[in-house]
């Protein structure tokens, strides 16, 4: 009988087969076998994959339904591949990080082209290395932050490659903690209750070509160094504490060619240091940049600041960062020598922006004619601006990035 189902190292699972579940399939499979799960609805949970090299492959609509009981699949062997599966209904727990697909202490895993629906955590990587997470669709229906888990969660990992995934309505879309030397590329993260990307204590990572739209608090990159951030779009992250990106305790990163559009705060910098911010577009944000006084030696250059309500806010009258050669749509200086650079320096921290940053309650005066009057007075007499931050070479034309 066994010979019937063991064809060339493949275990077939289907609702009418002898092997009617993944758990059973794993138990009879040999390492490096393929488990082919045919279309069907499999109510299973607590599946432990402990054989290396298994390829678990769904065919058609192969659904593993944890039915709100426990974690679905835990992988503790190296080089396991999971592809083409749909995993759903992993329950919320306040004690245990239940995940649809968890990898613990493995290397070389591949998670490709799966669908995750209504799980607490979806993909969970712990103490793992060299994993590929590609083209997965991850969606939850979480309503409260407390009762929600993350879409892609990585903890104490390195050399991950996260690409082409879509994460919707989890707590954090992509969560990195102690994850080094990894790429996050071309992902789409939206409607997550907290951050589209939550990133801490992770060094030498690259994230590029991602889109973070309409997440509760935008994205946060904290306590990290040597991060490259380019060609990402941060859009419509709008709310009382929402940021295109919140940078906190950041050293020696690069931020370029990103688009920050319609966020409450485009880029928030708290203790962010030695980081060049170049060739980015800041369009229609509440504040394009908020730079706290403990951020130093950053360079802000060749960026476009267009139609932001406030361009730069800072809580210090001195500036410890260099602002040079940016395009500011609110700049109305002239260029007599026609070299493309305005002849009078520009102060992007307006008096009203300074007041609101330092006296929070003044934000209640936003859109009042009194603040409009102050703006007008500042245009007439720029010397009333108390802030030292200045762009000495403001550009007359919008920068065309490569």
């Amino acid at each position, binding site marked *: 009988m066994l010979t019937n189902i063991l064809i060339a190292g493949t275990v077939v699972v289907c609702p009418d087969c002898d092997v009617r579940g993944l758990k059973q399939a794993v138990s009879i499979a040999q390492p490096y076998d393929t488990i082919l799960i045919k279309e069907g609805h499999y109510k299973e949970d607590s599946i432990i994959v402990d054989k290396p090299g298994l390829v678990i492959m769904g065919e058609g609509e192969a659904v593993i339904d944890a039915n709100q009981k426990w974690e679905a699949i835990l992988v503790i062997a190296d080089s396991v591949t999971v592809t083409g599966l749909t995993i759903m209904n992993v329950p919320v727990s306040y004690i245990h990080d239940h995940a649809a697909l968890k990898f613990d202490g493995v290397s070389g895993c591949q998670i490709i082209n799966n669908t995750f629906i209504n799980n607490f955590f979806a993909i969970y990587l712990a103490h793992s290395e060299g994993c590929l997470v590609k083209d997965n669709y991850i969606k939850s229906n979480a309503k409260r932050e407390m009762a929600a888990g993350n879409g892609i969660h990585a903890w104490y990992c390195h050399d991950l490659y996260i690409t082409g995934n879509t994460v919707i309505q989890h707590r954090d879309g992509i969560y990195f903690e102690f994850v080094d030397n990894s790429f996050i590329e071309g992902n789409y993260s939206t409607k997550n209750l907290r951050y589209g990307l939550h990133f801490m204590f992770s060094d030498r990572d690259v994230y590029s070509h991602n889109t973070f739209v309409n997440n509760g608090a935008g994205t946060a990159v904290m306590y990290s160094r040597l991060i490259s951030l380019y060609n990402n779009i941060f859009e419509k992250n709008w709310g009382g504490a929402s940021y295109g990106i919140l940078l906190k305790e950041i050293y020696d990163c690069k931020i370029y060619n990103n688009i920050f559009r319609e966020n409450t705060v485009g880029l928030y910098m708290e203790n962010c240091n030695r980081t060049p911010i170049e060739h980015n577009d800041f369009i229609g944000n509440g504040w394009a940049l908020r730079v706290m006084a403990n951020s130093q030696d950053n360079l802000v250059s060749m960026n476009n600041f267009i139609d932001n309500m406030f361009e730069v806010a800072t809580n210090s009258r001195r500036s410890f960062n260099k602002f040079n050669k940016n395009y500011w749509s609110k700049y109305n200086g002239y260029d007599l020598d026609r070299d493309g650079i305005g002849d009078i320096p520009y102060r992007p921290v307006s008096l009203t922006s300074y007041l609101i940053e330092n006296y929070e*309650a003044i934000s209640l005066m936003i*859109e009042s004619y009194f603040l409009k009057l102050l703006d007008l007075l500042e245009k007439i007499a720029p010397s009333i601006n108390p802030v030292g931050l200045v762009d000495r070479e403001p550009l007359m034309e919008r920068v065309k990035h490569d």
Partner: protein
Amino acid sequence: MQLRNLSSGSKQLSLFEHYINDIVRGKWFIAYTVLLFALIYAVLMFSFETSQAVVGVMNLVIFIVPAVGLFFTSMYYYSRREFMEFILSQPVSRTFVYFSFYMAMTLAMIFSFILGVSVPMFIQGFIPEAIKMSLWGVLLNMIFVAISLMVSVLTDDRVRGLGTVLLLWFFFTIFYDAVLTAVIIYFRDYPIEKFIPFVIAINPVDDFRISTLLSTNIAAMLGYSGAVIKHFFGRFFGVLYVTFLQSLWVIVPFLVGLWKFRKKDF
């Protein structure tokens, strides 16, 4: 002598009707309504999304409505002072004349607000926003017509009256916020956030501005104070407080004006 019953219904409405006719046919009134319609329509047309449209309309309304309510009422009052003598020589009570004048002026201003602000909003499909805006339009016009009528009745000199009205406009639109800003800066070391909602709610222009902002995406930019005031406006007590204050702005000037009007020499 044949006399009709003194308390005939047509008499009650006749004077009100007269004032409405006189105001609404005035060239300034027509010009204002058309201009308001054009401005609001333009703002709505050039807005990309609802919040921007609503804030744009709000910006125009807080500038224009108090100004027009104040100036128009005063100018009309002074221009009809001699005719007022004719009216008062008729068998009518002064309270009746005052009330008719106030009601006619307020309703005319509300009428032009509805035509100039609410209608373009309806046409452009901002229906819930238009309803909310109309309610504020009613309240703001009731307030500023009452204040202006009071000032006009109290001040016989036309130039002084219009000067006072100009100062009041400046007070509500700019000076109140300037003083409040100074207070916030001066008392930075005290937990004034708790008191700011109480103080800022006194000014009807600020009430309108903040409640409009809270309904748009700009609410996110009002920070902690915004959250405090949203909480404050959202509670029954807050609504009661604001309603009470705003009714005072209508009732007190109305009654002071009436008191003076009843004992005034013409």
